[in-house]
């Protein structure tokens, strides 16, 4: 079993058969033609020190992917804000990791939209 982390905290993972599973090194251009038909994508993080998944998420969003985007695997609660800012909707962690990093630690990062330099740089010109 695993836990889904969103801005409102922990929830048990539900059915996930509609997710396309890819690893963090997957070339996004491979998916370019079918992005509109994909409902949800789950990107696997093999190690918290491997930041490829953040860039892959951003690239998928920039290519126009509007479906659900989930990060799964080795992710620290300190990385929650990065995941959200990069374009993920949610994070999936194991039950064991949810014990080690309890809900309150993740909720402490739920204000990810605040203090975000990128939001200063990318607002459309006024």
């Amino acid at each position: 079993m695993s836990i889904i982390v969103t801005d409102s905290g922990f929830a048990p993972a539900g059915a996930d058969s509609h997710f396309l599973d890819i690893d963090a090194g997957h070339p996004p251009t491979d998916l370019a033609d079918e992005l509109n038909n994909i409902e949800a994508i789950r990107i696997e993080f093999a190690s918290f020190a491997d930041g490829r998944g953040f860039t892959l998420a951003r690239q998928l969003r920039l290519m126009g992917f509007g479906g659900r985007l989930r990060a799964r695997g080795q992710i620290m609660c300190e990385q929650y804000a990065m995941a959200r800012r990069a374009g993920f909707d949610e994070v999936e962690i194991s039950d064991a990791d949810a014990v080690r990093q309890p809900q309150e630690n993740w909720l402490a990062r739920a204000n990810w939209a605040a203090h975000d330099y990128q939001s200063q740089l990318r607002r459309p010109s006024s």
Partner: protein
Amino acid sequence: MYRYNDFDHGFVRERVRQFRSQVQARIDGVISEDEFKPLRLMNGLYLQLHAYMLRVAIPYGTLSSAQMRALAMISQRWDKGYGHFTTRQNIQYNWPKLRDVPDILSDLADVEMHAIQTSGNTIRNITADHFAGAARDEIADPRPYAELIRQWSTDHPEFQFLPRKFKIAVTGSSDDRAVTRAHDIGLRMARGQDGDIGFEVIVGGGLGRTPVIGEVLREFLPVQDLLPYIEAIVSVYNMLGRRDNKYKARIKITVRENGIDKIRELVEAEFILRRASFGGADQELLARIKTAFPAPDFIDAPIANFKTALAANDDFATWVETNLSPHKNPDYAIVTISLKTLGATPGDATDTQMQVMANLAEQFSHDELRVSHEQNIILPHVHKSHLAEIYARLADVQLAAANVGLASDFIACPGMDYCTLATARSIPIAQEIAARIDELKIERDVGLLKIKISGCINACGHHHLAHIGILGLDRAGVENYQITLGGDATQNAEIGKRAGPGFPADEIVSAIERLLEAYLAQRTSRTETFLETYRRIGIEPFKIALYGDGKANHAA
């Protein structure tokens, strides 16, 4: 100077608050050192040989007097009364206690400073020409662009876990004082066909165990494309850079393994995608940042007393000869304060010295100081009528060494005295060489000479780029010092060549002396520098000086 707005303040305070609770969790044993490590590294806190080390960023090397005073206060209150200025325009404190670090960060936040992204596999402190805004040969002040990149790279959500650390340097001058060709990304300001400002983009330079001079990725990048283009470079690197071997993880290896043309193709494609996500807010921000870097309000006053002092005081005149650089205003000078006084640790300054430099900046340099990658402090805007008084006040605190650009103006990494990775000492070797040069009284005769020393193959002392580079290694438990010759850190960047087998610690000083003698014997005139002589006659005569006739090739 750039001042924090509410957003910057809020960001830094929030980070201090988060780190305070992480430190508390570590002290209470709630988290292990393994869990704490990535958190402290996000905040510039290293574990060194004897203690924690805190590395504080000095963005593009610019400090106000209030900031320098705060650095002095921190060294006095929380450390052992000194700080170490580094080759990447940071200051390091070598003895902070873990429980004090959140308070130190809070004190830094009071003066708009922090230690964020001074460690870890992320975009590090953005460095710039230390003469920015003052240099005579400058197209424009590079610091507004560096500040824009600082804000963009700070807490960038994609780039906190890159394959390896990532360093960016910016210069606005034709004389490259920012070593742009030895950075992951180097930006050299240029003018486009319409006279508009842009940048030549250099990628994949770096030192370490595989020194590489960066290659040009884009000849001319218009200013409005700056952020999307470097974001494209870093995202291509993030996906492509090797993560299986940390010695092959820097972008220089990514470029070598994939070829510059392939990298360029990927970056240009990514750039198109990225550019669409910038809606002009970055350019509005840049315009606001620019207003924070106005030219100083220059004073118009006679400089006769400067000429009188020059004639009256030989020591002052000697100092003026080496420690001043031309300012764009002819009545002004750029003053370099040497942190290489005989017997001192290169790059170190005591709290008292920092205080004095802060006071001088406030009184005489339009409230500005700079830190150079050569580990000296700069007063960028000094009216010549104030030079004599500045000199006297520097001399009172042992900061008047007249050796900028000369043999004893070393770069030396911390080496065995502090660094866990060191294979040899570097500071004591630098001090011994300085003492010998002082004994021989040949420093001024030798003239312009860059000696740089690293205590291990990681090359933090930039020895590859030195006219005479020294690399301290460990050969079966014994320190061994290898010499490289002919390196160059300027716009004509070049990696030095290995001269031959290394020397034990008790022979390296004499070996350097022989090199200097060989140069003095071979140069055509006093105006031919060591590097010029080397380029004219090649490495052989220097090998003979080091190893004797015939021995060089055999021993190598």
